[in-house]
């Protein structure tokens, strides 16, 4: 049963991240996703210190606000300060992440977080932290419900805003022409990314969440050219990653989140080599056949 809860949580997390990541990589904002996932850390810690518990709404809001603020700050430094984009991303998120780690070390006694948790989460503890009602009834692990609700929020966000997100991603000029606010959908998307990051934080940590944001959609992107299909494929890859990641981690007694990222990377490598349309091996074989045909025809 424990394995089931862990895999379920892992799947919720990787589906949420993967769906949003699809938009990020197509908008060439993969590194902004990376920056947000690092930068929400101080928001989480501060909300922790204020509310004193880890599953509060305060925490989600605190981190969400900080995530959007990060994107503001990156753009502000870029536009007003003339700092190149890569440096403004790099400077901003390392600073906020450092702040988060310092806060954790300084309030080690008050904050129920440690540096390990920041780096690779503690998804193995999911089944221990149960949600018990006031009448004493055990409903199930708390994390399952939190990540599950976030997944529902994100899926509804994508369904409701599908057309707007699609247009602002692929053709911002056209979107602007038919009165869709690209800025608003940009910040909504960033807000959603922050939300997914915070919800995944406890399970997989701040850095490995980037693997779930980027690797599954990048893999799907190599396998299909239809966007809707890419989203669906990403979701299935997410589930596959949590199942195999869990058993890999158990078999060598290592971090589950680390194993999930390893599998995610492995799947990408497979797609990169063997994708029927784009794969390196396939392209190489095709080129060889063409060369042969050419040399025979002369």
């Amino acid at each position, binding site marked *: 049963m424990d394995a089931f809860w862990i895999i379920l949580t892992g799947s919720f997390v990787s589906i949420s991240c993967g769906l949003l990541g699809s938009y990020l990589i197509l908008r060439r904002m993969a*590194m902004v996703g990376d920056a947000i996932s690092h930068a929400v850390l101080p928001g989480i810690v501060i909300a922790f210190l204020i509310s004193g518990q880890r599953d509060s709404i305060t925490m989600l809001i605190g981190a969400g606000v900080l995530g959007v603020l990060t994107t503001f700050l990156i753009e502000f430094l870029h536009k007003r*300060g003339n700092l*190149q984009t890569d440096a403004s991303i790099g*400077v901003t998120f390392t600073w906020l992440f450092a702040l988060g780690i*310092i806060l954790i070390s300084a309030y080690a006694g008050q904050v129920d977080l440690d540096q390990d948790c920041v780096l690779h989460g503690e998804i193995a503890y999911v089944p221990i932290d149960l949600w018990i009602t006031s009448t004493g009834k055990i409903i199930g692990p708390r994390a399952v419900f939190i990540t599950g609700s976030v997944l529902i929020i994100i899926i509804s966000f994508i369904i409701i805003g599908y057309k707007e997100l699609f247009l602002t991603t692929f053709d911002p000029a056209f979107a602007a022409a038919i009165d869709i606010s690209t800025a608003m959908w940009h910040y909504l998307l960033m807000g959603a990314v922050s939300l997914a990051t915070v919800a995944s934080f406890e399970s997989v940590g701040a850095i490995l969440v980037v*693997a779930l944001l980027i690797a599954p959609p990048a893999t799907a992107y190599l396998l299909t050219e239809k966007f809707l299909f890419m989203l669906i494929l990403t979701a299935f890859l997410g589930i596959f990653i949590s199942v195999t990641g869990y058993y890999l981690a158990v078999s060598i*007694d290592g*971090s589950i989140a680390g194993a999930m990222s390893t599998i995610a*990377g492995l799947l990408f490598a497979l797609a990169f080599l063997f994708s029927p349309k784009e794969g390196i091996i396939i392209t190489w074989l095709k080129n060889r056949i063409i060369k042969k045909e050419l040399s025979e025809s002369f």
Partner: protein
Amino acid sequence: MGQLWEFLSFAEPNIRYVTFGSILLCSSAAVVGSFIFLKKKALVGDAVAHSVLPGVCLGFILAGNKNPILLIAGAFVTGWLSLVTIDYISARSKIKEDTAIGLILSVFFGIGILLLTYIQHSGNAAQSGLDHFLFGKAAAMVSDDVNIFGGMAFVLIIAVALLFKEFTLISFDVDFAKTIGFPVKGLELVLTTLTVFAIVAGIQAIGVVLMAAILITPAAAARFWTNNLRKMIFLAAAFGGFSGLAGAYISYIAPAMPTGPWIVMVISVIAFFSFFFAPQKGIVMKLISRRAMAHQIQEENVLKLLFQLGQEDKNYFQQRSVGDIQARRPFNTKLLLSALERLKKQGFLEKGDDRWQFTQAGQKKGARMVKLHRLWEVYLTRYLRIAPDHVHEDAETIEHIITPDLEAKLEKLLEYPVKDPHESDIPYL
């Protein structure tokens, strides 16, 4: 305070080692980072920094203990591999570079975490302290480490000093470097190798997670203070060195704290201060100078207008109300009033019951503005063959930035014309 003196007196040899080691590590990383920054590869640096973790772990698994040489070798191999993979993926598939960077960064780091947790659970007692590579611990360096890492930093600085001209060229103009026959590919290879070297050297003090900051942030901060590359690199090294010193000190007084985040905090504070308050380039300073410029333009426009009105009425010292001025040119009332008040303070105008008039100095300055405007109109029509009805707009902007030097040259070039293209008189003093 007592602790600070104790620290700065370097009485303990260990403090001496650790401090000089940290300063050397951070400043050498900042020197190499300056070129990474200029080549706009900041995030690649971040990816490499994360990617050395699996190498460190593999080195440990091979050696069975924390043998610095094997750890460094491992780190070097995976750091390098990550760079090659990023380039390969973005060159050979439709995956964009930013996605490739994020992918390699997180996957390599994930593999590193998997290996690290595996080592930690394996019960090998020698592994304790391996996690210091994550967030850095300057104080955990023993004299052997300091010798090795410090030596690497020293080599880095020498290498950059020797190849300074070449690196400058490939950072600013790769095509030109190719044209004049520099071995660009080879030089980029050397620079990347030095980057990986700097990262591997720095991980003891800063840790893999935040190593990118010490590469990029000092350079970004230094860039706001100067346009001269040499000065920028020295400044970046100084900023980096200072944060290394601060980190070593914090490691000394607060053993529970990881050093890396504090070093990053110090350097980030320096950077944000630079972004906002550096003279000329800082955001706040730019706002201030833009405001001053806007004020100057408003003031000069008012003086010019009063002079033109005076020229028409043949009375420069007539008192005029705000309404009189606005009848000629619709200034915003609030801006006009504040400009008038500033001009009074500067001694160019006098005020008598809500009406304004020139002082001698004000009339002179107004005359000069009109003269510059009209001289420029003459210049445009005569030398650029622009139609007289098209020259006003351009003159309207240029008149505020013509220096006395340029003014003299214009007068001489145009041979002191008396009429502008619209047949108005050009006033000379």
